[in-house]
């Protein structure tokens, strides 16, 4: 009974989350470029999309930056969280406090200050310029605190002596981390990685200021249209991305169910 109620609740929340996506998908088939005027069914934005090299380039940048930054931030963040957890109470709260600061900083301030930092480094080094690499670094840097914030709660629920016990039994710190700690905090790592990926895909302001000449991601492309009107090709693109993700999720979940079932069969 309770499970039923929760099922309905999850359904309602999903409806809430997907309502705007459905509107956006409907608009991608709208012949007219206005979201308030239905000009009939049309595939014109999809045709335009495939003739647009700019969008393809931005999509590639968005995906690679999001994957790479989520991955690297997850590694850095997880190791850091484990390390922080081993600190004494005082130091720990100081380090966590500093780690949280970027979460509190308005995005625009983060963006401008990272830009200034990168420009300073470039001037000191006397080489390089803003571009893909600085964009990636910026994304990693704003992702790390979110990973730590996701992993820390799991660590707090963990027995503090686990790590030491593993090392007493002859494990190196790396082994202790990989074999003992990581399996325990996996849900935290996964949520951290997912949040990091999401933040990276969604970020506009920090990206705009830390990227360089000719390197755009989708957010920059879309937000820069905010003044002169967003091209509905973007709706078409988003619809395609959305459908791709959905198909992938479906395939993965089907595979998982099959695996579960076969494991069940083996057990019996």
């Amino acid at each position: 009974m309770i499970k039923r109620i929760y099922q309905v609740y999850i359904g309602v929340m999903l409806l809430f989350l997907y309502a705007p996506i459905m509107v956006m998908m409907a608009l991608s088939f709208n012949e007219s470029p206005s979201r308030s005027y239905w000009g009939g069914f049309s595939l014109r934005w999809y045709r335009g999309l495939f003739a647009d090299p700019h969008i393809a380039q931005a999509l590639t940048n968005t995906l690679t930056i999001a994957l790479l930054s989520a991955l690297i931030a997850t590694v850095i963040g997880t190791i850091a969280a484990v390390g922080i957890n081993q600190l004494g109470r005082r130091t720990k709260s100081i380090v966590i406090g500093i780690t949280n600061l970027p979460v509190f900083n308005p995005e625009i301030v983060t963006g401008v200050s990272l830009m200034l930092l990168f420009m300073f480094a470039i001037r000191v080094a006397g080489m390089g310029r803003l571009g893909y690499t600085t964009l990636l670094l910026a994304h990693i840097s704003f992702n790390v605190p979110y990973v730590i914030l996701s992993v820390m709660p799991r660590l707090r629920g963990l027995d503090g002596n686990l790590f030491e016990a593993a090392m007493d039994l002859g494990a190196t710190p790396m082994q202790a981390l990989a074999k003992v700690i990581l399996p325990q905090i996996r849900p935290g790592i996964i949520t951290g990685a997912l949040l990091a990926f999401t933040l990276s895909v969604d970020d506009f302001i920090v990206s705009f200021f830390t990227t360089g000449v000719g390197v755009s991601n989708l957010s920059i492309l879309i937000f820069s249209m905010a003044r002169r009107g967003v091209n509905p090709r973007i709706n078409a693109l988003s619809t395609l991305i959305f459908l791709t993700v959905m198909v992938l999720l479906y395939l993965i979940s089907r595979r998982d169910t099959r695996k579960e079932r076969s494991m069940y069969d083996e057990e019996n």
Partner: protein
Amino acid sequence: MLKRIFVYPYILWMFLFIAAPLLIVLWFAITDTGADGQTVFTFYHVARFFRPAFAGEPFFQRLYIVVLTRSIWIAVLTTMVCFVLGYPLAYALAKFFGHRSILLFLFLVPLWMNFLLRTYAWMTILEQNGVLNALLSLVGLPTIDILFTDTAVVLGMVYNFLPFMVFPIYSVLKDMDNSVIEAAQDLGANRVQVFFRVVLPMSVPGIISGLTMVFMPSVTSFIIPNLLGGGQFILVGNLIEQQFMRVGDWHFGSAMSAILIALILLMMGFIKLIDRQPRNKDGPAEGVLY
């Protein structure tokens, strides 16, 4: 000592990518460019935020203070709604559907679509002649007009930040030791007692992460108040964005940002005080089971 090895590289990273940019902000906040282009130290920009428009103007009626309190109020509302909606969601996902992690993805995928497009879509839904009102009148219900109000702003923020509440709570609830709950039940606790005395206290670390990740972006967001609030709201995020983007006064923008961070740190210290109460000195979170 060896076990701390993991933290040192991070400390280095922290100084480079967290402390350094913040020091830059602080630098701008307490300096100004003099008439001859030289940098001078001054608290002018920090003081500017609190300055009255006329002598004796009550503190909470001063322009920037009004904006700040309104931002915090909106953010508190957003965070509360996120918690009320998000906790049961995280609980349900963890307890009943923990084996189907695909569901978790379903709650994130909407956020992979561009933020601006989603916000525009909300306008299409909430407008007077929008999708929602069309549906309402279709089933004979009275129409509503909430676009460009605080309701729409909170709705937009909850929509965007809800997963940041759900995920950390989910990750602590997911592998919560069922034997603890069973033990409590064996000892005669009923469902409500088990929840409030066992489950809720154990999820506190996740809740704190969630509150942090929702509250902060809500204070400083400016695109949602612009679009769904229709400019009826000016939040601290708008102020800072305008200083950096329209006025070009980085000093004042940084000063506001620094004030905001200081304020948040104070609040965090406060939260930490509450957080520490129910736990024994350095035991794990289970310490609350008394």
